[in-house]
């Protein structure tokens, strides 16, 4: 089932094209990472599909129009910042969300437990740290058990502890089988959580697909030897190796995925090269991202 369908969506701010003819479809159960540098149009896209910005052209539909105008009641979302009444506590703020969603259950224990705010539920929102505010916002998205949750830069501005707390909460939510859309520019975050990725830049879609297909099959190899020049020439002559570069002391290169790293070590030894360091890594999303967005 299609959860979200975006067709030819554009948004102009005067002469600036924040979003340029975007097409996208999100299926049920996908954990979609919306990637792009700052100012690429991620938040604009989310703002339009959440009804707070009006598009200059194009259209979108949620849940195949099953819920009509009321589709946002089935979506839990944070956009940019956690938005709550500063003079109300967690319970009161969640109560307001509950009333809007039209949900009966007034039991916020479970969601507050999930984001570890149960102990501070009676403190006013304005007394919260940024991490706590962000976590309350995540809790709010889960009220009424929505089909889809949307997070916009969920770990933005948090300290390392906050980031890891939020990340584990997100993984937990993702494991519940909900459809998740997450905008981010922090790539290992997306790589760890998402099943699918969309990369946009300057409002244009550059790539989309599942995380595996975006990540190319090449592996990256790091090598170190006492005689670097000999090693370099050896790698250069090797048929399965390309893109050799120097990274500090180490040499780094890309190789076909069928290259066996043990064989490579043996070949090197046969050529009189003793490797002191040899590591094979899968290419990270970050490398792919930089390559895709640099063009």
């Amino acid at each position: 089932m299609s959860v979200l369908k975006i067709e030819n969506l554009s948004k102009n701010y005067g002469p600036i094209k924040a979003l340029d003819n975007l097409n996208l479809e999100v299926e049920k159960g996908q954990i979609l990472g919306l990637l792009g540098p700052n100012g690429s149009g991620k938040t604009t896209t989310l703002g339009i599909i959440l009804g707070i910005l009006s598009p200059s052209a194009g259209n979108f539909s949620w849940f195949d129009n099953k819920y009509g105008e009321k589709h946002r009641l089935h979506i839990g979302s944070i956009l940019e910042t956690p938005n709550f009444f500063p003079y109300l506590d967690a319970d009161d703020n969640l109560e307001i969300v509950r009333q809007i969603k039209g949900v009966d259950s007034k039991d916020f224990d479970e969601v507050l437990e999930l984001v570890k705010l149960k102990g501070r539920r009676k403190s006013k929102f304005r007394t919260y740290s940024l991490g706590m505010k962000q976590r309350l916002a995540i809790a709010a998205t889960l009220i009424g058990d929505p089909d889809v949750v949307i997070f916009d830069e969920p770990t933005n501005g948090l300290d390392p502890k906050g980031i890891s707390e939020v990340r584990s909460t997100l993984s937990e939510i993702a494991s519940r089988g909900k459809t998740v859309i997450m905008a981010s520019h922090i790539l290992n975050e997306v790589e760890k959580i998402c099943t699918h990725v969309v990369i946009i830049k300057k409002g244009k879609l550059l790539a989309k697909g599942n995380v595996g297909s975006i990540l190319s099959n090449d592996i990256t190899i790091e090598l170190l030897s006492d005689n670097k020049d000999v090693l370099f020439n050896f790698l250069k002559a090797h048929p399965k190796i390309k893109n050799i570069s120097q990274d500090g002391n180490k040499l780094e290169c890309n190789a076909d995925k069928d290259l066996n790293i043990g064989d490579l070590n043996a070949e090197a030894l046969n050529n009189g090269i003793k490797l002191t360091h040899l590591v094979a890594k899968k290419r990270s999303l970050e490398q792919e991202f930089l390559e895709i967005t640099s063009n």
Partner: protein
Amino acid sequence: MLRLIKLEWSKFKKNTTLTLLFIFFCVFFPATLFFGSILPTGLPNFLPSKDSFFSFPGIWEYLGYAGNWIVFFFLGVIVIYTFTIEVSNKTLRQSIINGLTRQEVFISKLINVVLLSAFATLYYTLLSFIIGLINTEDFSLGIAFSNEMAIPRFFLMSFSYMTFALFLAFVFRKAGIAVFFYISYVIIIEPLIRMVAKEKIYSGAYINYFPMNATEDLMPLLGAKTTNSFPTNMDFAFLLTFKEAAIFTIIYTLIFLFISYSLFIKKDI
């Protein structure tokens, strides 16, 4: 509808600023009686005697005029605040993200205006009735309510001030500038425009038909009507009749509501 009222109540019942403004309104309104009671005795002879301020039917006009200022000031600011605080905390945006439609947001703010107007009118009626009852010797219901429709006039006046306040909140979206424009428009800008229009463009009754002047004329100062019979160099009256004031106030109110709605329904939030 009840759902929207409950929602607004949940948002604002614990807000200190609003609670204080509301208490001020409830205290200052009857406190204006005190000012009436300490007026010097030798009033100019075109004004009614001081005693008639507090007995029927004078009390309706006296408290009505006092309410004119108090409602304009306190309730107008409350209405601006209930919208702009939601803009600055971005809870307006979040409410829509969470699932309210823009129509529902607009209606809930309009309901605030209606409920506040109804409360103010009820409070005005109660105060006038009690004070009038205490100070009128020959009491009868006929005398008590011979007030030229003061109660609906008061409601319309309150509704008009608050609609104008809401309109400015929708336009400016920031509390400071909206409150500043609201107060200065009513007290300075519109009277200035009317004065300049009269002096420089054309001196005629049309200067009485400006929106806030029409609203003010729904509840004019006690005795101000007699000034209409003063000989002046103007060939038109100082005040609108109640009927004229009511018709024009309703027209302006509808215009303000229409513009507010059109602005809000499609604007990026």
